[in-house]
C-alpha cells in the first residue's frame, strides 16, 4: 500500500497529467472486503483501470459490515455517499426504499448479453419492476471436513440428516467437536440455519401473495434437527461468526464445519494439505437432492450525476471482463465464485496458484452452487420486507429461542413468524 502511495505521488509530480486529472471524474467505491490482502487486490485492479481510463479516477474506501448499515443511509442523506457500494441481496431494498437507487436493468441486460449471468444471481436483485444492482460474485455454503479424519473414524461423507448426526456423534471424541455450528444472532447463523431449512423442504418463507409461511412443519423439523446437532458443537457456538468456525476447523477442534470456504485459513493457518481437505454438499433430510444457501453479492450504483454514473458503469464492466474478473474473484481464493459463464472458464480465475492447488474443492463448490437459494429470494417470491427480517436476523433469533432459552421448536418458530410480521409492519 505504501509503495503504491509513493508511486502515485511520484507519478503526480513527474507527469503533466496532474493538470488534466483535475477534470477527471472522481468516483468512490465502498466495499466490505476489509482484510488487507483483499483491499490490496482491489487496489491493483483500480490502478489498472485508472491507468487505462485517464478521464476517471476511482478510489476505494473499505467499510465494515457492522457499521455500513448505519453509515450508508446517513452518508447518503448528508450527500457524502459512495458512487458504488457492494451489497448482499437483503441490503439493497433498504437503499431502494429511501430512493437512493435507480434500476440498472438495461445495463445488466447489456452485460448479460456479453458475459451470461447465472440467472439466480440477477433474480436476487430483480423486483418491483427493476433490477437494483449488478451481480459480482457468488458465495455458497458447504460442508467441510478432513478426509483422513473421516476415514480414521470409519465413516462415509454424510448425505442424509441421519448420517450427518451419526457422523457428528462418532467424531465427537477427545474434546473434539463433531460438527461446528453457530448459534449466534448474526448473519452466519441465518445462513447455516437456512441451509438446513432448504435441505429439509422449508425453502420458501413467503407464500405467493407475500404473506409469510415460515411457521410450517418443515421449518419446525429443521430447527429441531439443528438444535439437536448443536450438542456436537463447541460451547461458545452462541457467539460464533464465520471466523470462529474456521479457526475451530483449522485447529482440529471441529471435525466438520459448515462454511462458504475454509481454503484460505486451511492453507495458511492449518496443515494446508490439499489432498486431505474434503468438501461436500450439505446433507438433506432424505439424501435425495442437496440444496444450499447462495449469496449473490452485487454492486449498487448510487451516483445522481450522469457522468459519474457512466464512469461507475465503465468500472463495473471492466471488473466483469474475463481478463480482470478472475483476479478480482481471487482477492480471496476459494471464497468468491463467478456469476458469469465466461467468468467460470476465465483463465485468470483458474491460474491463481491457490485455485490451482485446490481445484478439486473449488469445482465441487461451483457444482454445489447450482442449487443455490437465498431466503426471501426464491421462486420469484421476493418482497421488500425481507430486508427487515434479514437485518434483524430473525431466523437466528428463532434458533436462539430454542437453543438458549429452551423453547420448543414449534413455539419458537411460531413466535419467529410473529416477529417477522412485526418487522415487516
Amino acid at each position, binding site marked *: 500500500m505504501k509503495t503504491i502511495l509513493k508511486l502515485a505521488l511520484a507519478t503526480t509530480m513527474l507527469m503533466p497529467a496532474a493538470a488534466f486529472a483535475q477534470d477527471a471524474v472522481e468516483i468512490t467505491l465502498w466495499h466490505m472486503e476489509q482484510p488487507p490482502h483483499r483491499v490490496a487486490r482491489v487496489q491493483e485492479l483500480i490502478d489498472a483501470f485508472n491507468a487505462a481510463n485517464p478521464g476517471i479516477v476511482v478510489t476505494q474506501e473499505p467499510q465494515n459490515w457492522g457499521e455500513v448499515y448505519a453509515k450508508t443511509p446517513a452518508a447518503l442523506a448528508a450527500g457524502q455517499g459512495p458512487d458504488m457500494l457492494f451489497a448482499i441481496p437483503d441490503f439493497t431494498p433498504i437503499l431502494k426504499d429511501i430512493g437512493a437507487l435507480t434500476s440498472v436493468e438495461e445495463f445488466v441486460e447489456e452485460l448479460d448479453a456479453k458475459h451470461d449471468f447465472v440467472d439466480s444471481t440477477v433474480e436476487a436483485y430483480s423486483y418491483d419492476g427493476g433490477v437494483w444492482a449488478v451481480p459480482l460474485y457468488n458465495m455458497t455454503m458447504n460442508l467441510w471436513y478432513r478426509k483422513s479424519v473421516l476415514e480414521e473414524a470409519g465413516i462415509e461423507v454424510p448425505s442424509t440428516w441421519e448420517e450427518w448426526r451419526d457422523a457428528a456423534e462418532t467424531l465427537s471424541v477427545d474434546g473434539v467437536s463433531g460438527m461446528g455450528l453457530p448459534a449466534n444472532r448474526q448473519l452466519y447463523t441465518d445462513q447455516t440455519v437456512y441451509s438446513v431449512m432448504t435441505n429439509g423442504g422449508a425453502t420458501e418463507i413467503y407464500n405467493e401473495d407475500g404473506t409469510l409461511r415460515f411457521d410450517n412443519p418443515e421449518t419446525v423439523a429443521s430447527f429441531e434437527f439443528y438444535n439437536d446437532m448443536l450438542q456436537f458443537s463447541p460451547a461458545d457456538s452462541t457467539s460464533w461468526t464465520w471466523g470462529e468456525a474456521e479457526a475451530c476447523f483449522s*485447529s482440529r477442534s471441529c471435525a466438520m464445519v459448515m462454511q462458504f470456504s475454509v481454503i484460505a485459513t486451511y492453507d495458511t493457518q492449518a496443515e494446508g494439505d490439499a489432498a486431505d481437505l474434503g468438501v461436500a454438499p450439505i446433507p438433506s433430510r432424505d439424501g435425495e437432492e442437496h440444496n444450499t444457501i447462495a449469496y449473490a453479492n452485487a454492486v449498487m450504483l448510487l451516483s445522481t450525476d450522469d457522468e459519474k454514473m457512466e464512469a461507475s458503469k465503465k468500472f463495473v464492466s471492466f471488473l466483469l471482463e474475463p481478463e480482470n474478473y478472475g483476479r478480482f474473484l481471487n482477492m480471496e481464493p476459494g471464497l468468491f465464485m463467478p456469476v458469469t459463464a465466461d467468468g467460470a472458464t476465465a483463465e485468470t480465475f483458474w491460474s491463481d496458484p491457490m485455485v490451482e492447488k485446490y481445484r478439486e474443492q473449488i469445482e465441487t463448490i461451483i457444482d454445489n452452487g447450482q442449487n443455490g437459494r437465498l431466503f426471501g429470494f426464491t421462486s420469484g417470491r421476493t418482497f421488500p420486507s425481507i430486508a427487515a427480517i434479514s437485518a434483524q436476523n430473525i431466523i437466528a433469533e428463532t434458533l436462539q429461542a430454542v437453543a*438458549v432459552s429452551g423453547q420448543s421448536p414449534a413455539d419458537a418458530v411460531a413466535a419467529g413468524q410473529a416477529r417477522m410480521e412485526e418487522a415487516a409492519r
Partner: protein
Amino acid sequence: MQQSKALAFALVAPAMLVLAATLGWPLVQAVQLSLQDVRVIGSPGTFVGFDNYRHILGGSAFWNAAGLSIVWVVANAVLQTALALVAALILNEKFPGVRVARTWIILAWIVPTVVVVVIWRWLFSTSGGMINPLLIQSGLVDRPIGFFATPWTAMATLVFVNSWRWFPFIALMILAGLTRIPDDLHEAARIDGANAWQRFRRITWPLLAPTLVVLAVIGTMLSFNVFDIIWLLTSGGPAGGSRTLPVLIYETAFKSYRLSEAATISVLATLLLMAFAVIATRALDRDGAER
C-alpha cells in the same frame, strides 16, 4: 460586580457552547424525532404525537432492556469498586516498587476499547483461547466453558471485561482520596491499640465514603452508557441476555430501521438517568456544603 459577571460568562460560555452544540442540540432533535414516524435516517416523517411512547412503553423490549441496564450498572459498580478499593488500599501501602505499580496499574484503561474487546474475545474463545485450557489444566472444569453461551454467563463475562478496563482508573481516584487521610490519625489509633481492621473501619472507611459516593454516581452514568464493549462482544446476545438500553437504541435505529422509535427509547433513557443524576447531584451538593 457587573464586570465580574461578564468575566464569569466569558470564562464559562465557550465550554457551554460546545456542550450545547454537541449534546444539547442533538437532544432537542431526538425529542423531535420521537414525535414522528421516521424509519431510515434521511427519510421524511410525519408528526404522530405520543404514538411511539405508547408503543414502546406498552411493549416488553424496553422494560427488559431497562432491567438489564440496572443489572449491568449495579454489577459493574460492585465489581469495579471492590477491585478498585482493594487495589487502592494496596497502592497506599509502602513497598518496593509501589511507584511502578501505581503508574502501570492503569495499563488496561489506556488501551483502546476495540483492542480490549479483541483481546478478551480471543482469550475466552474455545479454539485457541488461553482461559479454557488454563481452567481445564487446573482441574476447575472438565470441558471448555462457553463464556458467552448463556444469558447469565454472557452478562457476567461482559461485566468482568468492562470492570477490568475501568477499575484501575477508579482505583487511582480512590487512592487520591486515601492519600488525603492524614497519617497521624492512623498513628494515633495504632497507639490506642486499634488493629488493622479497626483502623480501616473507624478511620479509612468514614473518610473515604464521600469519595466513593462521588465515584459511584459518575461511574453509574458512565457505565450505563457503555455501548462498544457490549456491542462488539455479544451484540446484546445471546437471546437478548445482554441487550441493555444503549444496545436496544442502536439496534432499533440501525438494524430495525425505526429511527423514531430509537429516539423515543433514547428520550426515555435520558429521563431515567437524569432523574437519577438530579437526585444524586443534589445529595452531592449537600455533601459538599457540609465540608
